[in-house]
């Protein structure tokens, strides 16, 4: 019963153990009943072992001596046992050795799997089929177990005659003699080569899979690191949004450009940083692109929480899943502020340059004409003088000399004024708080004699606003306008010059110089500010004065213009940007 238990424990089947309980009472009956059942084979094994243990195996050994190719015949007297042995032969690899390990019996399955004939095997020990797979300790353990009279279970890799290896699930049962020493060993094996191969393949596959997974994980980690490094360092904002436009990722540059933190942006949509002027157009287009999975490209402004405005180019590209459905959007944000500023600077510079070129052309044109004109006079008068002297005509000498004098003075004045005009554009003096009323008063003082002789009234409005400007240039501006008013605007009945201001426009400070003379026809009102443009032949002048006035206004960011109706005087307006206006209350407060 001890051996049976050991054998059946191999299968660790509680059902079988239960079945064993009845073996001692009526083995044959039980076997007969259960032969057809699934467990029949195991019962056969049980029986065989029992038979062997009681000397049946001796019969087998005797039969092997017949050296037949087929399994030795079962003696008739064995009866059912012979049938069970046949069944065993059909299923298992079977071998019996003596106490020294010399093989005394093998069945056909043994020969079949090992490739050795029975004759080649019997009389040899199991080293014949040792594959070398197992370490010596493995067999040492095996022999120790069975020599101790214990059953050994295990899986052994053997080598067939043709050199191939095969695996067998092995159970070795020692048969002991009267002194409980092993006299024989019965080895029952089943071929598990395929199972081992499958196991091996599975192990191999597992190892490969593990290494593949590890490699892929490493790749993913590297790729993620790379992406992170890129996302952190590119000078372009990068984001990911879901299909509704909600941020799921933004890189540091995105935050820097929009002035928002990642925490502020996550889970929000675009509205948070859009400039109000671009918002509607942006969101409309964005919605369409989100709905239809289209690329999105838009130039617009963003506003940071601190109010900083940036010009940006926003791009969105839909990312689709395997089915072609838009899974999310990947977006970029390029800061165009610097480029746009540079562009507008460039445009402004171009305009400035164009203006300067036109001015220069006009200047060269005017100068070439207006400086040549007195030269023509010079050579003409000199020629006449020479001719007169040659014929002894003396009556025109003084007249000719006087003309030369006047011409040279006119030329000098023109040159001085031209130099002055060119300086205004280049040299801007230090800004001071200037009171135009004071400038007019100074002019009145300097020209008191002339004003009173010509019976001209000069009045200044009270509360003339102060401005921050180049005092010298502003004095020059008012001098020119007041001089013009005296020269050209006081020829009629009303000899009056008014200086005043207009503060009705919040963006500008305006002064005016008004006369009540003949006025200027509308078609010449712009022309009067042109270089060397004169409206009168009767009054001395170079035609540079109003150009100077205009230039002074321009270098202070302002402009001049004239309002006039023929016969009703002229009003020259000087307009400055409100920025240079000096608010007395604020000034005092600051002081």
């Amino acid at each position, binding site marked *: 019963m001890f051996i049976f238990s050991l054998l059946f424990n191999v299968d660790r089947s509680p059902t079988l153990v239960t079945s064993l309980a009845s073996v001692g009472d009526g083995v044959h009956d039980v076997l007969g009943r259960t032969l057809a059942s699934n467990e029949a084979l195991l019962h056969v094994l049980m029986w065989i072992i029992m038979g062997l243990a009681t000397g049946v195996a001796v019969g087998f050994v005797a039969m092997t001596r017949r050296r037949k190719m087929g399994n030795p015949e079962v003696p008739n007297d064995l009866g059912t046992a012979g049938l069970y042995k046949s069944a065993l032969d059909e299923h298992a690899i079977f071998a019996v050795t003596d106490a020294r390990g010399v093989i005394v019996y093998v069945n056909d399955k043994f020969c079949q799997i090992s490739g050795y004939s029975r004759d080649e095997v019997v009389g040899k020990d199991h080293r014949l089929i040792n594959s070398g797979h197992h370490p010596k300790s493995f067999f040492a353990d095996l022999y120790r177990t069975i020599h101790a009279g214990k059953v050994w279970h295990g899986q052994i890799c053997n080598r067939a005659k043709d050199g191939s290896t095969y695996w067998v699930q092995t159970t070795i049962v020692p048969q002991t003699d009267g002194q409980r020493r092993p006299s024989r060993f019965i080895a029952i094996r089943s071929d598990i080569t395929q199972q081992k191969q499958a196991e091996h393949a599975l192990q191999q596959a597992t190892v490969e899979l593990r290494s593949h997974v590890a490699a892929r994980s490493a790749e993913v980690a590297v790729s993620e690191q790379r992406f992170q490094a890129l996302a952190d360092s590119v000078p372009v904002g990068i984001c990911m949004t879901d299909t509704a436009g909600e941020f799921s990722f933004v890189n540091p540059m995105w935050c820097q450009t929009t002035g928002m933190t990642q925490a502020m942006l996550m889970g929000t949509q675009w509205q948070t940083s859009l400039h109000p002027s671009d918002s509607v157009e942006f969101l409309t287009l964005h919605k369409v692109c989100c709905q239809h999975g289209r690329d999105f490209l838009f130039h617009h402004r963003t506003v940071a929480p601190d109010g900083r405005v940036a010009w940006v180019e926003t791009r969105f590209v839909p990312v689709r899943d395997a089915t072609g459905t838009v899974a999310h959007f990947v977006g970029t944000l390029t800061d165009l502020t610097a480029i746009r500023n540079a562009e507008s600077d460039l445009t402004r510079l171009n305009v400035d340059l164009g203006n300067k070129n036109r001015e220069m052309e006009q200047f060269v044109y005017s100068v070439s004409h207006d400086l040549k*004109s007195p*030269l023509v*006079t010079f050579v003409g008068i000199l020629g006449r003088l020479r001719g007169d002297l040659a014929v002894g005509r003396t009556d025109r000498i003084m007249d000719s000399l006087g003309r030369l004098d006047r011409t040279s003075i006119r030329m000098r004045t023109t040159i001085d004024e031209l130099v002055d005009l060119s300086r205004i554009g280049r040299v801007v003096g230090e800004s001071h708080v200037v009171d135009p009323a004071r400038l007019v008063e100074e002019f009145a003082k300097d020209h008191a004699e002339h004003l009173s002789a010509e019976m001209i009234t000069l009045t200044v409005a009270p509360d003339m606003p102060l401005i921050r400007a180049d005092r010298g240039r502003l004095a020059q501006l008012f001098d020119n306008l007041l001089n013009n008013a005296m020269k050209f605007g006081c020829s009629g009945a009303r000899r009056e010059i008014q200086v005043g201001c207009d503060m009705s426009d919040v963006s500008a400070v305006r002064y005016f110089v008004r006369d009540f003379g003949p006025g200027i026809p509308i078609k010449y009102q712009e022309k009067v500010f042109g270089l060397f443009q004169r409206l009168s032949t009767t009054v001395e002048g170079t035609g540079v004065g109003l150009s100077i006035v205009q230039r002074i206004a321009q270098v202070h960011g302002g402009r001049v213009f004239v309002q006039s109706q023929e016969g009703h005087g002229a009003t020259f307006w000087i307009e400055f940007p409100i920025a240079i206006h000096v608010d007395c209350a604020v000034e005092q407060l600051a002081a």
Partner: protein
Amino acid sequence: MFNGRPLHFLLVEDDDDHADLVLSSLQDARVLNTFSRVATGMDALAYVRAEGVYATATRPDVILLDLKLPMIDGHEVLATIKADPKLCGIPVVVLTTSAAEVDVVRAYQLNANSYLCKPVDFEKFQAMISDLKLYWCVWNVPPLIAA
């Protein structure tokens, strides 16, 4: 001679000295002619239209026109004369210190009959005015009935 009387020049020139130089050169030449001078574009137009103080003025046979004039400049005077069917037949010779291409082109576009640049040399100036007078008084053939 023009229709049995000496050629009448109208000089439109704001600079008195230049006017004197031109007129004295016109006088010096041996061919007989007459002339008038006005200083502004407005006076020039009044003269050719025989308006106001110029109601009885002699109709000019040739106009010598400076370009740089106060208010109505030479180009405007030229354009007005050439646009007026009663006046467009009067030859207009532009006489100016400006040699700027833009002025020359514009003058011819406005149908100036000739463009002369005042030389900065007395002899040349005299020679030019003298040749000009000879050209219009001797060689030029005017229509018998003034256009």
